[in-house]
């Protein structure tokens, strides 16, 4: 059995255990449509995808036209100005840790942070090849960020949660109320 398959399954299982919503997708376009549909169905108007234009210009222009069709405002920068309107933060995870269903994101960009902290929901694409077993396996990658400061690296393992009132688990206290992880199977893309 190929270990990568295992990691993906583990990631999915552990993610569900912490109330993350996981789906497998075959193409980036599928992810874009997923984010748009979700935003619309929840009555959102603003979708933020900071950094996507630089990461993947083709995807960005496709996203723009899809959003336009759907009447959704797509923003990529100066997110402080739209705090309060943001419904969906759309990002691409740099890595993921299967053992704890953790997304690892270089969040040195403030806009990326705002998109993942102050949106109502967070949709993240996770390329399947980026899943590792545990945090230790990312030691050199993480050190890479830390030795080229400034850097702000986020481990995100689910939606924001608290149990501070009578230990009742409640999702969505300060950060996003939902985390959607879209595992991108590149080999099929």
């Amino acid at each position, binding site marked *: 059995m190929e270990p990568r398959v295992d990691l993906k399954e583990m990631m999915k299982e552990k993610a569900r255990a912490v109330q993350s919503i996981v789906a497998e997708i075959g193409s980036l376009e599928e992810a874009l449509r997923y984010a748009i549909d979700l935003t619309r169905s929840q009555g959102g108007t603003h979708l933020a995808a900071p950094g996507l234009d630089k990461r993947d210009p083709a995807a960005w222009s496709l996203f723009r036209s899809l959003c336009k069709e759907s009447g959704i405002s797509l923003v990529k920068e100066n997110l402080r100005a739209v705090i309060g309107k943001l419904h969906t933060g759309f990002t691409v995870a740099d890595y993921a840790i299967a053992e704890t269903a953790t997304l690892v994101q270089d969040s040195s960009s403030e806009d990326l942070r705002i998109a993942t*902290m102050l949106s109502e929901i967070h949709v993240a694409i996770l390329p399947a090849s980026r899943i590792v077993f545990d945090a230790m396996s990312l030691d050199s990658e993480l050190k890479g960020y830390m030795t080229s400061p*400034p*850097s702000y*690296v986020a481990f995100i393992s689910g939606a924001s*949660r*608290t149990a501070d009132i009578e*230990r009742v688990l409640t999702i969505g*206290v*300060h950060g996003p109320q939902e985390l959607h992880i879209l595992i991108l199977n590149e080999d099929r893309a």
Partner: protein
Amino acid sequence: MITTPHDVKEYRGRLKKALKNEFLGTTLDNFATAYRTSRANAFEGIDLEGLIQQIAAAKDASIPYLEELFALFKTQAEKAGVTVHVARTAAEANEIISSIAKAAGARRIVKGKSMTAEETFLNAHLEKEGYQVTETDLGEWIIQLRHEGPSHMVMPAIHLSRRQVAELFTRVTGQYQDPDDINGMVKVARRELRQAYLQADMGITGANFAIAETGSIGLVTNEGNGRLVTTLPRVHVALLGFDKLVPDLKSALRILKVLPRNATGQAISTYVTWITGANECATGPHGRKEMHIVFLDNGRLSLARDPVFAQALRCVRCGACANVCPIYKLVGGHNYGHVYIGAIGLILTYFFHGHDNARAIIKNCLNCQACKSVCPTGIDLPHLIKEVYRTVLESEGKKPVRNVLLSRALKDRRLFHFLLRRAYLAQKPLAGEDRLMRHLPMFLAREHAFRTLPAVAKRPLRDIWEHINPRLQKPRYRVALFGGCLIDFVYPEQAEALLRLSEEHNVQIEYPMDQSCCGLPAKMLGERETAKEVALQNLKAIDPAAYDYILTLCASCGSHLRENYAKLLAGEVGLQVKMQQFKDKVIDFSSFMQNVLQVNSERFAQNYKKVAYHSPCHLCRGLQVIREPRELMQTAGLDYVPARDEDVCCGFGGSFSLDFPEISAELLKRKLDNVEATGAEVLVTDCPGCVLQLRGGMDKKGTGKIEVKHIAELVADNLKKRKA
């Protein structure tokens, strides 16, 4: 405002009040039960013991070099645009932070949860200086609004009910809040605090890690408030203790592997944030965050050099020592610590918040070892608590009469045993036919009446030994019995039971007559010197080379002999070999029967008597014997029925039960209720101290009493009669 009683009398008043708080009792009990399961699940498939050893070793390796690690951290962080400060005292930390706020022209401050800021009472200082400070962790916000301190290091508002929170939020928002709509109340915090983040000029957080090699800090949170506090305001100040320094990322990741699992039973907390340098911030100077990191000493650097207490700096603030503490479970964190809560709280209070605040609370420890058994960094918490107690007593100069008397008596075995014999005569008018004290001696007040005390035996074990101990021709083993005070002077019949079994299995037991008290009572009272002298006496009395095993029927003696003698006698020239041999030969009754003799069920009448078991603290955690007594009951033809919380302390704790009778009584009550729920006919345990407590409590219950026995007695009773 946190006020911690400075004397035991006032403290006991508070404890009594807390014991009447039904909500607290139920909540913390449910929590303790749920925690056990979720922790076990979280660590499934992980070599926890190995991990604990690695973390402890890594921590111990860096603790002597905190200043060097700090120097490296400072260089790296400053290169990345951070200003690094050192605060020698709590007041200095507060001053540094208010000066930063002043220089930055900040007015509004948002805070992430930080125990270090609680330690320095930072909020009170900043508010006095005119800053508006808002806690953003939900639990911290709640207690800030109520002007309280946290009652748990991880769940600061665990002492409050949904009703209390709803009343508070109704007042804060001016709108009715439904206590049963917890989600709705959480959303109140989401709305209210969102504004605070957006308006704040400065964010203050703690940090779980300071990574020296890169100058990074790591923050572990669930709510996401830590991310907002470090992102939205233009200034970020992190306040952390020197003890948070780790050499490298690997060390931090290793701790991260245990911290959330041990704290809340989560595989990982929802958000872990690694910040290196002054990051992008649209509202900051030149589009960068103004970032400061304040390292707090407040005694830590001297603590790092202390040969006994340095290990307290291993603590990663997971809060687990409170979660499993049977006393915390009854009285809550506001009565079990000052700022820091739980076992580590009792210790740190002395160092960070002073003698007066530690004086009363430090006595409130059963030495049940529950905390030690879950500490993810392997801190010997009960030992450190007793060491703090000793330090407190010594610095007060005048010792309690009890300490003086006990030390005087224990240092002279003949005097001690003379006094015990005299006790038999003195108690005569008070004792009943059933060898229980039917009247309490005058010096014990009514609150001690929750259990009947046993009478001292007419003839101690040592006096009848030669008559009851059969001489065997060719024994399989020669075994020294370490009696301990209770077996020798109160319950010699428990040793007689052992002799019936040993004869049957061809084992020669000896009772070296110069043995004395094991010394644990002295340690419990902080009398280390006395404990050491007694240890030396016993080591002289029982030459390990002369016996195959040193057997004890008392779990407390056993674990003290095995664990503490090494600590007490460390450095004694010429004794280390004997001590090691002694330690290696100490064995408890059940392990001896089950593992050494491998007793056969054919020797026992299989009468399937329904038996409940109480697992003594010093057996299951002290000696880590768990399987053997349970198997032995089955071998001996008994029907063992598990009870809830079998391994939770019965509340005896030696002199503890005299100091805090209310706590002892409540623990005993819960224990007996759990035993009764099993429907067992007999309750057995492996420790005469527990027998004393449980039998005494059962006697007071009146109706439906369950017989309480030492496991040796019941097993011996089930021996098949030999053919005549």
